[in-house]
């Protein structure tokens, strides 16, 4: 998982007062620029998936129909995929297909990939959202405390904790979590989204189990769903927590070394107010970017965690498709995860510029 900012900061020409029109023009211009870069990045993503699906495989037809297909099916697929035409034309067709929501059929489920993805995506969204909420709720205070007591054992512990976020394999943590909290302590439910006898009792509305059960008014199933969700979400949450705590700490240290903090202390402002009002308040915008990035990273990290917890989300769908060599499904899932990832990245980048007066 990487968290580098993906775009350069905007050129900072300070807008003089009384130039509202020009400034509005500049805002519109940067909006157009935002749309253009995001479109180009999506095009790049499509080029990569196209390359992976059509150019690398020695026989892309075989990759789609599988090696047990009859010659007639093979030939039909070959013509349907348009492999007799030049590559640029094929790429154009591919882009058109994707834009109209045609990701092809999945060989393993026998359904269009797009409807499969629509079905599994909410499960991932639910898990990642609970995970990031945990990461924010615990990670931000941890980072603040670590910075406030820089060098103490609390700080050292939090630092090592943060580095563990870079060195523990997510699938391993999931397995250990299952062994400890499910098998030994019986604190959490096992794999899957619900106990098997609750399966299919709640009509899917949003696809988010917690929301659907509340809509149906079935609190037993709600608690069961929460019980299943809490362990995988905590595993995911750990990784965002480690990253958020580490970044919060470094932002806070920057602020605490500023002169206005010293001024506040000299004036006799209570330390709690200095830390939360004077030092923490200005970094909230930077934190939004960090949280956005780590949310995007969680969608990616969910691939491993879902595999371990048999969580019926997009990550599990992707790994199953990988093992079945179901290329359409693999590329569809890659596209969706990639698109969401890029979108969240760009949005948090823009939010930073909109909210931070210095970057405007």
């Amino acid at each position, binding site marked *: *998982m*990487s*968290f*580098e900012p*993906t*775009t350069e900061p905007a050129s900072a020409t300070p807008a003089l007062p009384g130039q509202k029109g020009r400034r509005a023009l500049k805002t519109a211009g940067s909006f157009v620029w935002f749309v253009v870069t995001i479109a*180009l*990045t999506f095009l*790049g*993503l499509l080029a*990569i*998936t196209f390359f*992976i*699906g059509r150019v*690398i*495989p020695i026989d892309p037809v075989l*990759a789609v129909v599988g090696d047990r297909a009859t010659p007639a099916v093979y030939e039909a697929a070959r013509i349907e995929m348009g492999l007799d035409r030049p590559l640029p034309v094929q790429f154009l067709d591919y882009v058109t297909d994707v834009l109209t929501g045609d990701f092809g059929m999945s060989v393993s489920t026998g359904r269009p990939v797009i409807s499969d993805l629509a079905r599994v995506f909410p499960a991932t969204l639910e898990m990642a959202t609970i995970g990031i909420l945990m990461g924010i709720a615990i990670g931000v205070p941890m980072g603040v405390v670590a910075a406030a007591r820089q060098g103490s054992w609390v700080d050292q512990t939090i630092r090592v904790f943060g*580095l*563990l976020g*870079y*060195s*523990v*394999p*997510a*699938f*391993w943590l999931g*397995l*250990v979590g*299952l*062994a400890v909290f*499910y*098998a030994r302590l019986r604190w959490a439910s096992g794999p899957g989204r619900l106990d098997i006898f609750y399966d299919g009792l709640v009509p899917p509305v949003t696809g988010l189990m917690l929301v659907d059960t509340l809509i149906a008014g079935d609190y037993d199933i709600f608690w069961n769903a929460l019980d299943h969700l809490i362990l995988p979400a905590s595993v995911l949450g750990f990784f965002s927590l480690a990253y958020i705590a580490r970044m919060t*700490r*470094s932002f806070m*240290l920057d602020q605490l070394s500023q002169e206005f903090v010293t001024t506040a202390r000299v004036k006799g402002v209570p330390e709690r107010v200095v830390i939360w009002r004077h030092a923490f308040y200005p970094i909230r915008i930077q934190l939004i970017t960090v949280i956005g990035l780590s949310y*995007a*990273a969680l*969608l*990616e*990290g969910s*691939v*491993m965690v879902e*595999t*371990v917890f048999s969580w019926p989300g997009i990550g599990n769908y*992707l*790994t199953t498709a*990988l*093992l079945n*060599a179901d*290329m359409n499904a*693999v*590329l569809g*899932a*890659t596209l969706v*995860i*990639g698109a969401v*990832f*890029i979108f969240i*990245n*760009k949005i948090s980048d823009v939010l930073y510029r909109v909210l931070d007066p210095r970057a405007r």
Partner: protein
Amino acid sequence: MASARAWLLADSPTSRLQANLGRLYRITGMLLRNPLAAVGAAIVLALVLTAIFAPWIAPYSPVGQSLQDRLLPPSAEHLMGTDELGRDIYSRVIYGSQITLTIVLLVAVIAAPVGLVIGAIAGYFGGWIDRALMGITDIFLSMPKLILALAFVAALGPGINNAIIAIAITAWPAYARISRAETLTFRNSEFIDAVRLQGGSPARIIVRHVLPLCTSSMIIRVTLDMAGIILTAAGLGFIGLGAQPPLPEWGAMISRGRTFILDQWWVATMPGFAIILVSLGFCFLGDGLRDVLDPKQGDKG
């Protein structure tokens, strides 16, 4: 001993070798004074030694099966227990260090130079070359790495070589970014102008004068990235797309132990400790190197 030290720390070294060795000596000294970095260096050194001397360290063969000894808990005889085929897990973890080291070295050797050269070319020439190269770099950078690696392996086919290629494809853009930024800071310096006025070609300037100056930030970045590379490789192995059985790759071993996680916990957990230890080692070392080689950057990212 004292004279060797004086030679290393000489203020006016008489040869390039003496200057480089002196620099290395100073950096090593500073690294070892930083406790976390020293621990990291020790772990990485231990990994290298384990990989080299695996046949002498491991008490059993990594692939030798012994079905009457299957799924034994950790004991004095089998330090980490045995797996479902009666293989000694400790020996397999020891041999697994060879695979992990091979993967990280190959990824670094492939990805770092590619990124270095692309970034240096973009930064040195500027203009549309810069925009085109950095556009491609940015597209790759804004892609989720693990997913991209998975998709590439799906197309290339499972196996350790393809896993290395896939990880390298996702790793180079970060290096291109760094070397471009470094190049921009000194492309207009007088020493570059001097070489150009002497008739040095762009290729010569980049290779002989630009690239060497990018190496220290590159070394920091590669070391910090090692943990991520190890985790991605283990993840590919866990899914079944990386190293194939019976290779004792740590991720693949964890995957085999999944079935037994509820009763025979050691099969899956033991290789995980190896992954964590080695990744942490690289993180510590990378953090320490950054503090020593690039003090101005502080604790960012």
